[in-house]
């Protein structure tokens, strides 16, 4: 069974600084997808960034980027120039395309200090 582990229950960052959230996963598949989702207090699940495992280039979306290390099965999220609106729960997720179902990590609560 695939598992996704987020080892940081909580992280804190100063506004305008950079923070990195960690995620590791376990799989025997060679082709899969990885995601970071943001869940603000509104409870809505918002896709932040997506990475295809066959792509060596790390995905980037504005202030959000990932460090994808396939051999190490690591998928960290870097948030640059942190803003107060970035405060939320962040979930790492994995999809091997078998039914397209996502397996989620336990989440990291990010706090942004003004």
């Amino acid at each position: 069974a695939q598992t996704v582990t987020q080892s940081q229950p909580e992280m804190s960052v100063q506004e305008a600084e950079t923070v990195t959230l960690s995620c590791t996963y376990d799989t025997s598949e060679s082709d899969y997808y990885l995601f970071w989702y943001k869940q603000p207090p509104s409870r809505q699940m918002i896709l932040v960034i997506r990475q295809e495992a066959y792509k060596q280039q790390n995905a980037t979306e504005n202030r959000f980027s990932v460090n994808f290390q396939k051999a190490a099965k690591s998928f960290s999220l870097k948030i640059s120039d942190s803003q107060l609106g970035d405060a939320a729960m962040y979930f790492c997720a994995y999809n091997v395309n078998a039914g397209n179902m996502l397996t989620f990590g336990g989440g990291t609560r990010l706090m942004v200090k003004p």
Partner: protein
Amino acid sequence: NAGVTQTPKFRILKIGQSMTLQCTQDMNHNYMYWYRQDPGMGLKLIYYSVGAGITDKGEVPNGYNVSRSTTEDFPLRLELAAPSQTSVYFCASTTILGEKLFFGSGTQLSVL
């Protein structure tokens, strides 16, 4: 497009009561899912469907049932509510390509 619509948003049940959580999507997605999120935890898959008439169990199916009579609708049924089913329930859908999961806004359920 409304996307994925869940009703109700909040519900309180007594132990042993039954209810159906409704989920509908207007994007013609084949794949639909029900997840539950316990406080401070990640999402766990309850049931999923790859198309009308096809459903399958996820990680935590006990105490729940689903049906998929149309592409649009994927209701989740709780037959005998238990306190352990207190959670936030999310419905989601995606295409065959699975590039992005579209989530509903969730249903907060309390069983007292």
